[in-house]
Structures are given as C-alpha cells and as structure tokens.
C-alpha cells in the first residue's frame, strides 16, 4: 500500500520506512508519524464507530483531544483499548484494530441503532424498560450492556512494569509550545531549576504545525533550536512524552511519562510508564488552545475534521486527508489552513466562511456569508452541501472538510482545585479565572494570548513573574501578532442531526431536549445527555453544548454556567498509578529471624499483617494440617515446643516516669511492679473498648520492655507517642520500637526449663525459685551472647520467652532444636499457638475486635478506678455495664466431633431461630487434641451466669446447627498450676 496522501516536507524521517497494521491490513509509515497521520497518509479515513449509534467515524483532530479516532493498540496481553490514534507514536510493527463494531468496521450490525435514533433520544432509558418489572434485569439491561462499552480488555494480566518517581523544581512548565519554550529559556538562563513537560514526543507545540516564522527562522526550526539550547542547561530538565495530569494541593503535580509506549517492545527491567509526583515552588501552564468545531447536519462523517488538524497533518506530518479539501470557518484561522494546504498543492474546493466580510483570496474560492448545511458519504465524506447568502445552495465535491469555530484556551489544570474559568467576550471563550491552584499561573494561548508573539511574550513574562526575576526581560524574536477576535458561531440552524459530542452521539437536539425537560444546569445537561462524559472528556464539545444551552435559555454563556474539569487531563492506565506495588510486592513482606530455617523445615506460612509466620510444620506422611497441628500441641504440652514470636510488637519504655506512663496507657496498675518482674497489661481506647493487650517487663526502675500484639504493634506505638507528646508532655519518658532488634522465641512445655538450662550460661539460675512465673531478666546464652529471658506463657504451660539479637535468631533456633532432641522438642506454628491459647481461654484478635470491653472479656476487675488511665471513664457508660452485656465463655459441643463455627450465632436451646433471639456469637474455635473435642470461645449475653446451659450454635450461612454447652473459657489447667511449675 503506497502512502498516496503523502505531501512534501514535514518533520518525518523519510529515509526510514516502518510497517504497521490496521484491521489486519499492512501499511507503511515513517518515524515521526502518529498512527493517525500514517492512516491518513494511506488514505484510511474510516477508523471507528460512535458509542451510541455506531455511526462511522474518522479522525477529527491531530491531538489528545481526539473523540473519534480511538482504536485497540497492540495485541494479546498488551492490548490497549480506546487508544487515541492521534497520540500513538509510530513504531515498526505497530498493530492496531478498530473497536466497538461487529462484525466489521465497514459493516457494523449495531449501525441499525442509527435508524432508531429518534427513539433513543437523550435519557430515553430512564423513561422505559420498566415493564414488566422483571424484564429490566433479565432482558433489557444485558442487551444494553453488550451494546455499550467501547474497546475490550484482553482479560490477561498486564505484563508490563511501571515506576513511580519524585522530582522537585522551582518552576514546572506545562507545555512546550511557543510560550512554554520561551518560559523555559527565560527561567533556565536565570539559573532556576526548571522542568519542562509536554505530552507530545516532539517539543514545539503549534510551532511544528505552522508555516509561520519566528525571528528569521521557520517556526519549527526556532523550536528545535530552543530545545537544543535548553538541553544544554544543566538546571533544566526536559520531559517529552510527559503529560501533566493533575494539579494537586500545595504545588504537587502528577505527571505521566510514557517511557516505553513508542517502542516495539520494552528492554528488560525498563518501565512502560512512570508516574511522577512533581513538587514545585511555582508552575506555569502553557497548555495552548484547542480549536472548536461548528455543529451542522452530518458533521460527523469521516473526512470532516478540524481545520487546524488538517494544517498539522500537512505541515508537520506531510499528509493530507484528501486531495480535495474544503474549509468551513467563522474566523481567519480557517483561511490559514486553506493557504497552507494550497501551498502544498492540495486542491481547495472552497473556503466557506459564515462572515459576510470574509477575507478575499485569489488562489481559491471564498464563499462569504455561507454555511455548510449537510454532507454526504456513508463511510467517508464525498460531498458538502453549502447554503449561500442568496438562498441558493452549492455542492462541493471534496474528500475532506476542515472546520474552524475558533479556539478555546486549555484551562483544564486551572480547574483541578475547583477554580472556575471566566468568559472572555473578545475571544468568545473561557479563560482562566482568578481562583487558580496556589503557585500556578498561565501563559500563552491557554491564557488567551492567541498570537505567536503573544505566546512568546507571555511565556517570558510568566516565567519572570513566577520566579520574581529582576533585570531586563529577554529579547524576543519577531513573530506573527495578529489581533484575535472571535465572533462565536456554534451551530447551523435548522439541521436535524448536528453532532456536538461526537463520541457519545450528543446532538444539538439532545441539548435542546435537555433544556425542555428541565435539565438546565450545566451539570444536569452533562449528566442527562452524557455530553462531555466520553473518553475525550468533552475537550471539543463542552463549550459548544453550553453555548447552545445558553441560547435556548435566552441567557448569556456566563449566566448559564461554566464547566470545570477534573483530573486526569488525559486518561491514565490504572497500572501507572499502581507502579511496582503489585503481585507479591503489593505490600512489603516482613520475615522472622527463623524464616529461612522454617522454610528448610518445610513450614507452611501464613500472612500476619505484613509478616509471614510459620503456620505449621508438616512432617513426612502427614496428609492433613490437623495431623501436624495436633502433634505440635500434644508434644508441646507433653514435653517442649518452640515458636517464633518475634512478630509481637516490642517497645522500649525508659525514663524516670516510665512506670507512671504505663499506668496511664494500661487500665491496670504498673507503678508497683517490681524490677525483674513482668505483668500482663490491658490497654483501652479512650472510648473504653479494649485496644490491645500484652506484657510489660520491668528490666530496671526506669526501664520497661513492653510487648503488643502483632496486629497492633504500629498503632500502639503511635498511641503511646500521642499520650507522651500530647497528653503528658512533661513526663520523662522515651519510647523506641525494638520489634526487629530481637529474635524472640517462646519455649513452652514441662521440659522448657530443662531445654533452656542447656543453652543459658551457667551463671544464670533459671530454677523455679530463682526465676519464678512472670520473672524477667538480662542473661547470656551459648557462651556469652547477650539475651533476655521472660517467664511468661501464652500456652498455659511452664514457658519462657527468650530473645537474642536478630542476626543470631537463626542460629539460636537451630541450637534449640539440636539441644532439644533429647526432649523430643517440636517447633510449633501459629495454628498450634491458636489451639493452645483457646484451650487456655486467652482472648486474642477474634475477641479483641474493637467492640469489646474489659468486662466483655472477663477482665472488668482489671480496670483500676484508683488511677487516671485512658478509657476507664467511658468504659463505665450505661450500655456497657448492663447486666446482660456479652461475656466471654467457652463452648463445648455436646458431641465432641461437632465443629464449632466461628461467626455462628448462639440461640437458646428451644425457641425461634432469628435475629430477635440472638444471644451472642462464637469468636474462635479449635480442635483440642488434649480434650479430644472441638472447643470454642464465644461472647454470650450474661454469659458469666449461664455456665452449664445448653444452647444451639447456628450458622445458616454454612447450614450448620450444633448443640453446645456453655463452659468456662479456661479449658485446660484452669488453676494455672502448670505455668507456675
């Protein structure tokens, strides 16, 4: 296929030819092309189908505002739906497919919608599909859903990598057109840290699209020279292919750099895109302007394009959409397109100018005071119908029609913090208002300075003002400075279907209907007609829609309202916002000191917050996890077991007020705790609910080692800092987390002391007399390694927790295993830990669910009334101390093999099973290999007085009902003789 529409000149690399495919046909193009320019070069005008009526659509623009020319780019897992052909940088082997059509682009079955369009007017679906009621779900909606949507996902995981980065600068310049380049030169030369970002792969903006001259150079050459100078300034960072997507609080801008989208494939380890958070002192918006269309009958046919786009294609990409082009304009800019195309040898059929006083031209015909009233051509423009001032009509035979309705400044980022643009009568357009994001100013066409010289000048001034630069302004090159006055012309009267939002198929009529039905505020208009809600976010349609609404309302445009824009400026892949935080890297992983050893032992691991903990240690031959867990429990209770409990939060609390500090954060007392002793601590939130529990070991008069649950380590530390800094700022207390410092292992079971005695250095006596229950102390092990020993027990057995510096944790665990062989020592995981704590009736995560008080958990008496402690006052509220509040109890199934379902609800033995009769719920459950029975814990209304009662534990969700007996939560060794042994 030859590039039949290729012209001379342009900024493409003609020495290199690349191949690409569209809808499975091969074409050629050149580096420097976009997919859009390459398709035009190959005379492909039909590119897509519209959203609602599936009308044939071609390219409308040459930029990121494109509503029609959207395709599925690439194939397989890398398929990208809804990609704008106008922003796809050409590469060799590019593959694109049209979308939202079936079976083919040329023949689309759902094109029939178009025939019924009259029945599918704006909001029609709110008024129907209601009868019969059931049909909405079963019939209507499924059909609508299948018809809706544009492109399709591959349904495969995104295989590419994405990065996030952080940059800081004095001045971020958004847009590298004439104003942006001039601003960057001004700021860069002055030594400021500048970042210049532009969504295009080539800096220059409109300068690349025009034949104007800047100074004594052609505009695009001047741009290239400016870029060359900028890249030589070390304090200037150029970011092409980078879209600034949003203006966030306090000068933070989000920017997406497309580092890999223009490559056939990504080099290993390199990201496809980078999401930059740019921290700025000041920012200058130089985003230029977007040409706006005029609505007229059938203005959506492939070949009907923006006049400025035709100019861009001709001047920058050396492409024309057709050999015969007509122009429809209400301003001088449209004539510029005609002149440029004519100069490139394209036949200009006529310039249709709505103005009576249109400028005359001798190279081609200008029809003054004329309007385009219709177009022909099913899949592409063939004829244009023109109404002349004298009432007669003319038919123009042309393959492309350039439309120019004037220009709208790109104010989008000025609205991201809900600032509203203001109407400028002279430009007949919205310009940035006063209420801009702090630190952001606007220059160039984005600020209504439409001429080239105006852009250069305001860019230089904008940079100087933003950075408060002293001294003479830089000398500006001479450039076109034509005054711009736009007389608005929004749509051609009397047409049946004139398209405003081309992607969402919103017509002038729809806007009028919206008014007729009372949807008159701009937001109602958008929501009712879906105007501006398409993937282009109405960049070419919002203002026109608003203007039509104003006209029918008989109000001025500012009276009617403004539309503001939300981030992102252009759509961003969801992957880009996620960056590296995906798959296994979604959250950081914390490993315990014995992790590598446990892995060798074939442990099964479980997530506990960010930690990975050994859940159980299967032995060869064990086929079900219960076998492993039962064994670990039996062996621990019979002899000795070891469990890594490093994950428990550890906080070092020091200072002369340390004890009093703990008195405030714990509900129970700590002032009188002796040095060398440990105490269980119950921590309440200020609202009286249990926040956390743990132990505090008094290592010295002014030094405690506090433990928290694994889950609450971070929040408890934060809470203690709050109490220290905000509530009791004059307490002499210092806090620091030591969670990761120490490898801490629970050594539990009747033989735990014997095992420890083999590694604890002889000078330390850990006999029951010298080191009784709840003792703690600094010791050394294995010949002098500093360690800490605590005689505390979660399992209810004689037990210790021993801690050594984390780097020796692996070695200590191996040592405990080898030294423990004679006792048949067993490593146990979190499951066995859970079983033993349930056997013992210790409350844990499932009971400390944030809605339970000390009273609920059977620890009401621990809440001291004699001192000021957080939560004690509000824990006394009437509803929290009523006689029938939930109390922690044990559950024993009448038949031991019946499983207890945590989350099952307790119902009286007889009577109805419903919410009204709910008595409480089971929180935890386990099989106790010691009692040879399933057991569980529950929170039961007035539970303390219902021991021995038979009840039903129901779980309709899992279709279970179990007869249970209410028992004490302390199933094993209720007197606690073992742990004192």
């Amino acid at each position: 296929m030859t590039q039949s529409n290729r012209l001379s000149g342009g900024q493409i690399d003609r020495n290199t030819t690349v191949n690409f495919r569209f809808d499975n046909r091969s074409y050629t193009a050149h580096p420097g092309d976009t997919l859009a320019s390459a398709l035009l070069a190959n005379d492909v005008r039909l590119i897509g189908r519209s959203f609602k009526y599936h009308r044939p659509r071609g390219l409308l623009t040459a930029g990121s505002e494109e509503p029609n020319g959207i395709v599925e780019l690439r194939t397989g897992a890398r398929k990208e739906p809804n990609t704008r052909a106008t922003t796809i940088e050409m590469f060799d082997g590019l593959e694109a497919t049209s979308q939202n059509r079936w079976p083919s682009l040329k023949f689309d079955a759902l094109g029939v919608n178009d025939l019924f369009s009259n029945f599918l007017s704006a909001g029609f679906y709110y008024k129907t599909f209601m009868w019969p009621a059931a049909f909405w779900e079963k019939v209507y909606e499924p059909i609508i859903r299948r018809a809706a949507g544009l492109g399709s996902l591959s349904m495969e995981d995104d295989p590419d990598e994405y990065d996030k980065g952080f940059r800081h600068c004095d001045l971020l310049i958004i847009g590298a057109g004439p104003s942006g380049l001039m601003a960057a030169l001004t700021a860069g030369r002055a030594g400021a840290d500048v970042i210049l970002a532009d969504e295009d792969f080539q800096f220059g903006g409109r300068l690349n699209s025009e034949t104007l001259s800047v100074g004594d150079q052609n505009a695009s050459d001047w741009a290239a020279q400016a870029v060359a100078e900028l890249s030589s300034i070390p304090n200037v960072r150029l970011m092409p292919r980078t879209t600034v997507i949003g203006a966030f609080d306090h000068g933070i801008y989000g920017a997406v750099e497309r580092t890999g989208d223009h490559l056939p494939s990504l080099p290993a380890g390199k990201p496809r895109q980078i999401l930059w958070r740019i921290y700025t002192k000041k920012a200058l918006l130089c985003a230029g302007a977007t040409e706006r269309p005029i609505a007229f009958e059938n203005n959506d046919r492939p070949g009907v394009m923006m006049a400025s786009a035709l100019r861009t294609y001709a001047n920058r990409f050396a492409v024309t959409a057709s050999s015969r082009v007509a122009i429809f304009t209400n301003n001088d800019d449209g004539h510029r397109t005609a002149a440029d195309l004519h100069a490139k040898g394209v036949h200009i059929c006529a310039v249709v100018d709505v103005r009576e006083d249109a400028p005359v031209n001798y190279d081609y015909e200008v029809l003054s005071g004329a309007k385009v009233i219709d177009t022909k051509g099913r899949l592409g423009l063939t004829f244009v119908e023109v109404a002349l001032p004298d009432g007669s009509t003319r038919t123009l035979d042309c393959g492309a029609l350039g439309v120019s309705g004037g220009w709208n400044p790109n104010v989008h980022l000025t609205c991201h913090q809900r600032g509203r643009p203001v109407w400028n009568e002279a430009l007949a357009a919205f310009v940035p208002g006063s209420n801009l994001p702090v630190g952001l100013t606007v220059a160039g066409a984005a600020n209504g300075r439409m001429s080239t010289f105006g852009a250069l000048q305001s860019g230089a001034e904008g940079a100087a003002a933003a950075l408060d630069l002293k001294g003479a302004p830089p000398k500006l090159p001479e450039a076109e400075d034509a005054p711009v006055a736009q007389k608005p012309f929004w749509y051609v009267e009397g047409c049946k279907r004139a398209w405003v939002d081309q992607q969402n198929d919103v017509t002038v009529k729809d806007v009028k209907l919206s008014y007729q039905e009372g949807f008159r505020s701009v937001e109602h208009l958008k929501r009712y007609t879906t105007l501006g809600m398409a993937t282009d976010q109405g960049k070419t349609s919002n203002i026109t829609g608003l203007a039509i609404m104003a006209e029918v309302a008989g109000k001025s445009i500012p009276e009617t309202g403004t539309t503001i824009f939300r981030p992102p400026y252009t759509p961003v892949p969801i992957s880009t916002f996620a960056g590296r935080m995906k798959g296994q890297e979604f959250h950081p992983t914390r490993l315990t000191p014995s992790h590598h050893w446990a892995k060798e032992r074939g442990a099964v691991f479980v997530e506990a917050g960010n930690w990975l903990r050994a859940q159980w240690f299967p032995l060869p031959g064990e086929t079900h996890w219960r076998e492993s867990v039962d064994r670990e429990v039996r062996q621990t209770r019979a002899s000795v077991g070891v469990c890594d409990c490093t994950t428990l939060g550890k906080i070092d609390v020091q200072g002369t007020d340390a004890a009093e500090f703990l008195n405030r954060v714990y509900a129970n007392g700590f002032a009188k705790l002796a040095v060398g002793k440990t105490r269980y601590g119950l921590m309440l939130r200020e609202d009286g609910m249990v926040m956390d529990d743990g132990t505090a070991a008094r290592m010295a008069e002014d030094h405690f080692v506090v433990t928290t649950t694994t889950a609450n380590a971070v929040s408890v530390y934060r809470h203690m800092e709050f109490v220290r800094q905000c509530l009791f700022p004059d307490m002499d207390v210092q806090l620091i987390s030591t969670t990761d410092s120490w490898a801490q292992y629970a050594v539990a079971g009747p033989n735990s002391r014997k095992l420890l005695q083999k590694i604890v250095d002889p000078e330390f006596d850990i006999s029951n007399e010298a080191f009784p229950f709840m003792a703690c102390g600094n010791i050394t092990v294995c010949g002098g390694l500093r360690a800490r020993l605590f005689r505390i027990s979660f399992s209810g057995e004689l037990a210790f927790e021993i801690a050594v510096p984390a780097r020796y944790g692996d070695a200590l665990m191996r040592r405990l295993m080898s030294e423990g062989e004679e006792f048949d020592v067993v490593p146990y995981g979190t499951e066995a830990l859970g079983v033993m704590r349930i056997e013992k009736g210790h409350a844990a995560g499932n009971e400390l669910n944030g809605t339970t008080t000390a009273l609920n958990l059977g620890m009401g008496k621990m809440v001291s009334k004699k001192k000021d402690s957080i939560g004690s006052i509000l824990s006394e509220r009437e509803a929290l101390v009523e006689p029938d509040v939930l109390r922690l109890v044990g559950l024993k199934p009448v038949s031991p093999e019946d499983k207890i379902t945590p989350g099952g609800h307790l119902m009286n033995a007889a009577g109805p099973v419903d919410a009204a009769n709910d008595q409480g719920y089971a929180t935890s459950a386990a099989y106790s290999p010691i009692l040879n029975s399933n057991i569980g814990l529950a929170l039961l209304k007035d539970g303390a007085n219902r021991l021995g009662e038979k009840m039903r534990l129901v779980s309709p969700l899992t279709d279970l009902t179990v007869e249970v007996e209410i028992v004490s939560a302390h199933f094993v060794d209720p007197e606690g003789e073992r742990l004192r042994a």
Partner: protein
Amino acid sequence: MHDLIAITALGGTTPRVDTVAGVTCTENPAVALASVAARLGQEAKAQKALAKLIDASAPDVGQHAGGTIAAFWSTPDQWMIEAPFESHEDLADQVNSAMGDSASVTEQTDAWTRFDLTGDPLASVLELLCILDLRKISAGSVACCSIHHVGCFVLCRSPEEFSIYGPRSSAGSLHHAIVTAMRSAL
C-alpha cells in the same frame, strides 16, 4: 565467646552485592547501632556527652557526624549511634556508660538493615525510590522517608555514596525495591 553464627538480614552468611551499570548496592551488616534519647530536662547534658562520645558536636536536625563512632539525628532529642560491629558489638553498653543518666539508650543493631549505594548517577536511582529533594541532600545530611511503604533513613555520605537503613525484617522487600530501581533507571 559464644558460638552462634550470625546471618545477614537477607539471610546469607556473606553480604549481598548487586551492581547495575555504574551503581553498586551492598548489604552492610558490619555496623552496630544504639539509639540515644535525652532524658527530660537533661537535653544539654546529653548533647555534651554525645559530642564527647562521637568527637563532634551532636548532629542537628537532619544531620550526621562523627568518626569511628558516629551519630545521626532521628527524632527530637534522639539520635542513632553508628559504629563498626567488629569492635563495638556491645555499643549500647559503651554508649550507656558514656551518657550516664542523661539519656536513655537502646540497642538497635539488629533493628535495622543497611544498604550502601555507591556510584553514579545515584540521583536517578533514588528519585524512583523516595520523595526526598535530592538537590537539597548534601554530604552529612540524613532524612527519614518511606521507600515502597518501608520506613527508612537515607544518609548521604557523598554524592556518590548513600546509606539506606530499613527495618531488618523488611530487608528483602527493601532490597528488591532498590535493585529494581537500579535496573529501571540505569
């Protein structure tokens, strides 16, 4: 002397070293750490004692200073003390005696894992990892920040040498983040 063999935070018996282009990331377990927090009302005394210990004035906010025994600012009236592990495994005790009753001292040696980044250009690697304004980071400065959701200290020893301290238990994730950024940026 005890006979337990240490492993590194990444689980090896020898430190992990990764090089991409001109930049090297080295796991560094050969450092002993202790935190020093001034007691209420004894801040001045503590600073004096600290200065004596590190043979330099106590580092101000965002700074590190010292020689064999060095210190960096971590939180108000609190510093982290660094020293070679070989010679100072019992650093906490040494610091404790040096500070007397003017400060609370806590061993932090194994609370942290350290990665040393050396080479050029480090900025292009670091800007993918943390929020810090690298233009403002000069030799002798230290900053806390979060790297891929892991809270870290970043010390600049020279433009070509940075140290990153992260929680020991998260060493694997932190290392992955650093090396990934190196491959991406270099």
